[in-house]
């Protein structure tokens, strides 16, 4: 989590420390106006919002503007942004490759065979997404994979699209919160000086309570909220069981991740196996996964196309249509706007950090609000929510707020496990609730490609990011559990009750 930036570089603003929040505040207002009020879910539009916010913020800087520019570079080169980007790119390629191999058709077939109706589908999706996310440790990867693969299957059997998307995001929240290999779990433990094993064990009492309520809520809502089933076979799709061989591809990713391999390695093995299975079972052509679509009028293209092996990658097309295509290409390319957006948001967060904006919030909370242990814990929950609204990659938000949670918690001798749990649960939850959050937009990016992939998937089935937030039930229940826990003392432990083990004993 370290970077090579000069952390001593500070910024001062006309208007005081609060003015360092101008770029992020401008972006949030823009995001609410664009997605919430106008219903435009365009990620590139949000990029323009943060760019304009960064320009506006610059005019408030005292002293040389070069320092402001340097701080932007420091923010953009943080490792935490790269971690999210890698997860999106790899998961995007993996999910798309499984998709061209007919996994969704297989799921539709399985849902029909075991009679999973539209009412039960969201609750079941929540459980399966939670299992995958806990296994592979990336909520973002889960949101992408499930939106690309399970979402269309659920919509086909008649589940409500908004509820189903909420169930997927809820599963991602569960995994981000609980998985020992999740970035947010690790950051929460390390920053609060607690061992990861102990943190995961101590967080079950919150996560399970929230998950039970969320599961029941998806069962109940599934009965009342339903879409219209699609006759997939009649609409041009082919419901076939064979696509289910890709359960093996997903299994390889889970097993490799649980064995402690890096997520890049785990998903790479999943991609390799899914490509092999597509070819071995004739589920997809080579060109469906990677194709160089070159001009059919070129003699060179025609001769390469005729070659064995390499010819399979070359597809002659009309001269004006030349492009690179295939699942690896579209799977990665779908996330490019989100990647640019996230780099700019962490840059804006760095401006607020170096300009003293976060420090000002901490001082206000410490001196004015957190005067009793109940109020301190409530402040920790709400402070985490506030920072997550501003920094939309949840790991980055967690790193920003972690020192304040530590300071605030220690003022009341709140145990490291409890601090880590408050920090991680609320970061995990809110990162998938705010309509401009990284996890939600990652799933949305995957969803936007579905109308191109399935004839029967209409634009009306694409969920507006601003409409899903009430349905991320596990996220809301997790926040509610912690607000109640702060008030009632459920799960509270003091430093004097139990010493955290050393971080090195992970």
């Amino acid at each position, binding site marked *: 989590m370290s970077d090579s930036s000069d952390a001593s570089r500070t910024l001062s603003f006309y208007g005081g420390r609060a003015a360092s929040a101008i770029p992020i505040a401008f972006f949030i207002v823009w995001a609410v106006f664009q997605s919430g009020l106008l219903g435009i879910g365009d990620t590139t539009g949000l990029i323009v919002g943060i760019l304009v916010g960064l320009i506006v913020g610059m005019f408030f800087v005292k002293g040389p503007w070069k320092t402001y520019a340097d701080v932007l570079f420091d923010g953009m080169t943080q490792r935490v942004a790269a971690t999210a980007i890698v997860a999106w790119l790899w998961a995007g390629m993996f999910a798309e490759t499984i998709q061209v191999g007919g996994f969704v058709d297989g799921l539709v077939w399985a849902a029909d065979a075991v009679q999973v109706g539209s009412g039960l589908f969201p609750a079941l999706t929540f459980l399966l997404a939670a299992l995958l996310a806990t296994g592979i440790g990336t909520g973002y990867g889960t949101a992408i994979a499930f939106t690309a693969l399970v979402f269309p299957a659920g919509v086909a059997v008649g589940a409500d699209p908004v509820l189903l998307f909420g169930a997927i995001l809820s599963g991602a929240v569960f995994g981000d919160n609980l998985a020992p290999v999740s970035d947010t779990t690790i950051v929460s433990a390390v920053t609060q000086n607690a061992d990861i094993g102990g943190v995961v*064990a*101590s967080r079950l009492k919150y996560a399970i309570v929230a998950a039970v309520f969320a599961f029941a809520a998806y069962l109940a809502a599934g009965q009342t909220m339903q879409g219209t089933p699609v006759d997939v076979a009649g609409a041009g799709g082919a419901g076939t069981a064979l696509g289910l061989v890709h359960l093996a591809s997903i299994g390889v990713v889970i097993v490799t991740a649980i064995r402690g391999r890096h997520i890049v390695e785990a998903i790479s093995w999943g991609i390799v196996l899914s490509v092999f299975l597509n070819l071995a079972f004739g589920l997809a052509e080579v060109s469906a996964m990677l194709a160089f679509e070159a001009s059919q009028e070129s003699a060179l293209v025609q001769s390469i196309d005729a070659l064995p092996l390499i010819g399979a990658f070359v597809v002659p097309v009309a001269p004006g249509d030349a492009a690179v295509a295939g699942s690896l290409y579209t799977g990665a390319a779908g996330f490019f706007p989100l990647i640019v957006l996230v780099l700019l948001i962490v840059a804006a967060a760095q401006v607020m950090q170096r300009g003293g904006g976060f420090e000002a919030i901490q001082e206000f909370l410490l001196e004015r609000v957190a005067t009793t*242990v109940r109020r301190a814990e409530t402040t920790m929950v709400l402070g985490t929510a506030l920072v997550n609204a501003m920094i939309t990659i949840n790991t980055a938000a967690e790193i920003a707020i972690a020192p304040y949670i530590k300071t605030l918690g*220690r*003022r009341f*001798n709140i145990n490291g496990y409890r601090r880590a749990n408050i920090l991680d649960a609320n970061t995990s939850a809110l990162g998938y609730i705010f309509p401009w959050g990284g996890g939600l937009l990652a799933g949305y990016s995957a969803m936007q490609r579905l109308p191109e992939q399935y004839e029967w998937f209409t634009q009306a089935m694409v969920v507006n990011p601003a409409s899903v937030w009430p349905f991320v039930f596990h996220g809301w229940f997790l926040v509610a559990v912690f607000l109640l826990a702060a008030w009632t003392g459920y*799960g*509270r432990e*003091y*430093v004097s009750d139990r010493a955290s083990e050393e971080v090195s004993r992970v």
Partner: protein
Amino acid sequence: MSRFEKVLAGLTFRTATPSFEVGDEVPAFVTGQSESGLLVRVGDTVLVLPDADPALLDAKVTIKIESFDEGQHRGTARVVDVLQDGE
């Protein structure tokens, strides 16, 4: 502590004002200072360390409880060990 015990640890509704017995030795952070000396605040319970070195503010120490008033949730203690210096 076994993994199972770790899962069950803290599975209670813990009071905001924990009590201590005279003679208890517990780890805690030194959280503040007053005219009477350094303070250790555990939840909303306050323990005063009358003779402690002011340099121990924010340090993690082991304290021995010397007096405790259940009604006021206040007591006194002395430092018996320094576990970690203040940051």
